[in-house]
């Protein structure tokens, strides 16, 4: 039933898994996802939406790095028109280009929500697709408000944070509609360590979000650079701890191993990009008369890899939740402590 090796830890896990099944009632409940048919076209569409969303994040980062956020002064129109293409020069090509990609992502999300709602059997996934649509609407309004109020740091930072939240949702929908998620038999190992790997992944998401907000506040001139740089050390420690734990203890589970390796690789890349962005923007670019190419490249790449890092951490967290359930000790007064599966 479970692809486990004949080792003491797996025998123990198999026992815990049996107890988990007993706790949930039926085996079918635990492995319910298998009953959902794989829809290749829906999955490809969700994957495409996630990829275009990453492109949108890059387009948005280009707007900020080129200081072009207000080159089109009006919203939702562009120079008074909804359909006319402006002359795509200077800052306009970044700002209007960002709006065009955003509109495309909006249309993709509407289609994805409708398609998922109609084709998908899993109710929670249908709700997630509608939530994605809600997120993209809020994101669009935030983008408009930031133009209307001349880029206030709080709204611009919320726009940046929501962008990555939407990207994570898009990636999750792509994962949940994927063949592996639907058809694989989850390879389960019970986590008895403290803090649990699942807790570590949640902590990783939290510190990444804090870092995202600090970075966005700095980029949008609402805060100094140092909180973002100092917090980068915290992020590095937590993410390294998480990925090393995942790789050292659960490397046999492919669904955990792959995102953990990717997480570590992206973390190293992101730290290097962060250093480059610091040099080109803070150290060397302080007196720059205009946005310079090395600063634009390093900061945009830093934003894009940051989005990938957050999405990878979310994926790892979900895979850990699925494959490495947390064992806990039930503490009931006057009763013997018995390990239970959560």
């Amino acid at each position, binding site marked *: 039933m479970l692809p486990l090796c004949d080792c003491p830890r797996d025998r123990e896990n198999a026992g815990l898994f049996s107890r988990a099944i007993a706790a949930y009632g039926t085996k079918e409940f635990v492995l319910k996802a298998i009953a959902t048919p794989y829809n290749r076209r829906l999955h490809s569409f969700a994957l495409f939406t996630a990829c275009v969303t990453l492109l949108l994040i890059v387009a948005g980062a280009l707007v900020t790095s080129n200081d072009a956020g207000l*080159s089109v002064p*009006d919203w939702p*129109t562009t120079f008074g028109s909804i359909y006319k293409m402006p002359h795509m020069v200077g800052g306009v090509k970044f700002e209007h280009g960002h709006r065009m990609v955003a509109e495309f992502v909006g249309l993709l999300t509407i289609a994805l929500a409708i398609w998922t709602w109609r084709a998908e059997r899993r109710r929670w996934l249908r709700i997630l697709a509608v939530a994605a649509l809600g997120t993209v609407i809020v994101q669009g309004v935030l983008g408009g408000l930031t133009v209307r109020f001349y880029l206030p740091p709080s709204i611009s930072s919320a726009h940046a944070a929501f962008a990555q939240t939407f990207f994570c949702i898009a990636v999750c929908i792509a994962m949940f509609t994927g063949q592996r998620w639907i058809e694989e038999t989850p390879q389960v190992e019970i986590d008895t360590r403290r803090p649990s790997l699942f807790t570590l992944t949640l902590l990783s998401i939290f510190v990444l979000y804090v870092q995202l907000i600090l970075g966005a506040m700095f980029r949008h001139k609402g805060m100094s650079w140092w909180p973002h740089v100092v917090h980068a050390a915290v992020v590095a420690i937590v993410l390294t701890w998480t990925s090393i734990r995942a790789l050292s203890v659960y490397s046999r589970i492919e669904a955990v191993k792959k995102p953990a390796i990717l997480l570590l690789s992206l973390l190293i890349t992101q730290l290097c990009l962060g250093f480059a962005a610091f040099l080109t923007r803070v150290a060397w670019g302080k007196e720059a008369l205009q946005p310079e190419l090395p600063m634009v490249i390093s900061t945009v790449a830093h934003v894009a890899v940051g989005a990938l890092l957050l999405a990878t951490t979310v994926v790892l967290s979900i895979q850990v939740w699925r494959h490495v359930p947390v064992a806990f000790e039930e503490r009931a007064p006057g009763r013997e402590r018995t390990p239970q599966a959560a």
Partner: protein
Amino acid sequence: MNRIRFALLGLLSLSVLLLLAGCNKKENTESTQPTNAPASAPAATPIDQATVGSVSGTVKFDGAAPKAQKIDMSQDPACKGTNEAENVVADKGDLANVFVYVKDGLGSRTFDVPKDAVVLDQSGCKYHPHVLGVMAGQTVQIKNDDPTTHNIHPTPKDNREWNESQPPQSAPIEKNFAREEIMLPVKCNQHPWMKMYINVVKSPFYAVTGPDGKYEIKGLPPGDYTIAFVHEKLGEQDQKVTVGPKEAKTVDQSFKAGGM
């Protein structure tokens, strides 16, 4: 039930968009009309023209002047020619673009706001002049002589922020600033190298140093004054001066390179 939810969500989104569009229209209408000086503004304090004096001088840059940085204008093919930064313009030690004004000593005197507009021109994807002085409430007429669209975006601390685009050959934009503010930055987000500063003061006693570093403030009533010299990069320096009846006072000032 779900259809009703979708319809409500759609209506809500549409309402938000319409509301924002409505706000935009109102704001544009307001911002294109220059505000006149308040009707309740007190009458100007009379000045005896027979006794007025003047303050003039030269502003110098101490030390080796930094070489003007080149600007890359290739983002927009309409921005032809060369462009150099104007943040520190010091030729042979004479410092240009220093805003000189009477910071203190005028007491409760009030002054008429000139009816003539001050012109800010955009040509060669550059602002002319780079540093501008204007009285609070006085009209600033902004022209675009370039074959490309600019947007004019002041980022004040004490005045209202606005951002408007100006296509080529369009009518001048007329604006004014209600409150006193020194070195109010103005930029173009379409051409990020385009930056200039507007100085809004309450009195007509101000000047901007030319390429030769010289300035002159005329028509100053006799009295003790604080003259402020403000540079966008080098900061502010003040000097006390006493101007007697019909006296032409010379007040020179120098900025050190270390102030950058």
